[in-house]
């Protein structure tokens, strides 16, 4: 009798507890559901802000004149045309300029990767006098905006004559490495020289990334290599570099994209039109207006849109291909330290 009474009590408590658990679970699920909705709204809205202009530009670049003038057409053209692309390809001299630009960017990226990883490795693995001071210089290079040094860089490369060395071969005259009419190699030499000495576009950041990454690698790898008889350079090139894949991917993408999009140094060193794609897009408007005699501004805009799409296609393709490795790479590359 007593036992059964207690049994009942226990059962009631048990049931209450189960109900409580159930309630807890429902509340939690509901919370999760609300959170998911909120997240979805935010992400969709913000993605729209980012993608909106892009979608608009891509859609617009296929519009024919009648589509543009028709007030009822929105995003999907009625008479799609490739005319805009034909003219934009022609006026920007696209294939030629793109080939030159890709060679220029690829060359700089390879140098950037090699030099920055080397310097980063040196900072990470060796101790030498003034190391702290020199590393402070890397940070200074990141922090100081490049416009502070633009004028001296400009004059240096316009009258290029380091220690009078160039003068020895040129009757004591300095040479002009900047772009312009009959420039040497289209004015890309200043950028290559700077990159070769670890001062290229945002080189400080890349050195920093490599330094952080190499510092985190275990020292035993190199010790093993040394015992097995690998030289210093061999160790760096064939043992440490393959390990630094996340950093390499990150730096490669950053370097390609930033170099490709850079307008500051392009303008400063006056790099020739047949290499700088950014200059072509700037002059596309005037070219279409003057050569093709298109007078309606809203129609010219369609040509410029096609030009923009053509310019961004290479980076988009690169990004889509390497996107996954890239974001994972940044996470592991040592930016965070």
């Amino acid at each position, binding site marked *: 009798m007593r036992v059964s009474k207690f049994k009942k009590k226990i059962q009631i408590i048990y049931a209450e507890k189960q109900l409580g658990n159930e309630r807890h679970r429902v509340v939690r699920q509901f919370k999760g559901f609300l959170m998911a909705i909120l997240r979805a709204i935010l992400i969709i809205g913000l993605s729209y*802000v980012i993608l909106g202009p892009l979608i608009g530009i891509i859609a617009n670049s296929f519009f024919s004149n009648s589509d543009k003038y028709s007030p009822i057409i929105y995003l999907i053209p009625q008479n799609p045309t490739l005319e805009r692309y034909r003219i934009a390809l022609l006026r920007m001299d696209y294939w030629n300029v793109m080939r030159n630009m890709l060679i220029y960017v690829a060359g700089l990226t390879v140098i950037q990767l090699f030099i920055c990883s080397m310097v980063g490795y040196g900072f990470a693995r060796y101790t030498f006098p003034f190391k702290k001071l020199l590393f402070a210089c890397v940070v200074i290079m990141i922090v100081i905006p490049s416009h502070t040094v633009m004028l001296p860089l400009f004059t240096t490369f316009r009258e290029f004559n380091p220690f009078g060395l160039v003068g020895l071969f040129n009757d004591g005259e300095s040479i002009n490495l900047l772009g312009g009419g009959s420039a040497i190699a289209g004015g890309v030499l200043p950028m290559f020289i700077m990159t070769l000495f*670890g001062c290229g576009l945002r080189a400080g950041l890349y050195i920093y990334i490599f330094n952080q990454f190499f510092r985190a690698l275990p020292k035993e790898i190199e010790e093993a290599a040394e015992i097995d008889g690998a030289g210093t350079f061999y160790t760096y090139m064939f043992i440490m570099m393959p390990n630094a894949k996340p950093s390499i991917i990150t730096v490669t993408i950053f370097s390609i994209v930033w170099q490709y999009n850079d307008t500051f140094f392009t303008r400063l060193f006056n790099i020739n039109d047949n290499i700088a794609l950014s200059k072509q*897009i700037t002059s596309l408007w005037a070219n279409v207006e003057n050569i093709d005699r298109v007078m309606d501004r809203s129609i010219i805009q369609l040509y410029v849109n096609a030009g923009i799409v053509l310019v961004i296609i290479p980076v988009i393709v690169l990004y889509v291909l390497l996107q996954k490795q890239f974001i994972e790479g*940044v996470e592991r590359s040592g930016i965070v330290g």
Partner: protein
Amino acid sequence: MKLKKLTLSQKKSLKGFLFVSPFVIGFTAFYLRSLIMTVQFSFSETIMPEGAAAGHSLSFVGFRNFIFALTEHGSFTQDLTVSVFNMSFDVLLIIFFSLFMAILLNQKFRGRTLTRAIFFLPVILNSEAINDAIIMARAMMVGGMSPVSADVMEASGTAGVNVMYYIYMLNELGLPAGLLDYVVGAVSRINLIITSSGVQMIIFIAALQSISPSLYEVAKIEGATTYETFWKVTFPMVSPLIITNIVYTVVDSFIRSPVVTLSYETIFTHINFSLGSVFSLLSMMVVCLLLFVVCAIISKRTFYHN
């Protein structure tokens, strides 16, 4: 012969020096020398020889250029203050926004990779030439497919939503005018903020992923709410990277500020080397001072795990 006398540690330090030597040469030749030259330019008057394609000579004039820039020049001081104010305004928003988005994107949900790819897209497409073209496109486009434009008034005309109505309504609620201005400003700048917080977002995501899950487990066992967990675990653990992000944001947004445009134009359009150098130098000093003060304040409150 001499090399044999080096000890092992000396040899090692020599090797290390060889590794960093390209940078040392480059930094001395292109940065240190350039900085000294900029200072030189700003303390002297540049004399351009008539008719020569290149070459210039300098004569020392002391602080005259600085005094001219600060007291007499028409737009420099104004541009500088506007740049600094805009920068501080944006930096705050960008840091908050990127931290918020990083936490959001760090959660597990379907389509996370795609979302991250979209949010990082502005960094990939961040070219001045393309941006100019896009801004032009936005101005030309009539209808919906333009995002919230920089100008709230303009948006109210095209988007079919009367933004001014809401602003009036909030004003009537008795919110402080300063706060309202800030919020309205922030909303109208949302495009700028989203597009310039890509890198910061990625850095924060990386930081969030490096937090050990055991810390969250402990917090959960101890009965901490989500809110508490954020302030006691997440925020302290990512706080060292706030400084990194502030530095990155300030430097990044400074390059696009009106002061830089002014100094570029003074040098290359008006061919006034001295005055342009003064502009660059002064603005750099202001930015460095700002960074120094901000970092000093924040680093005291930062929690360093190690």
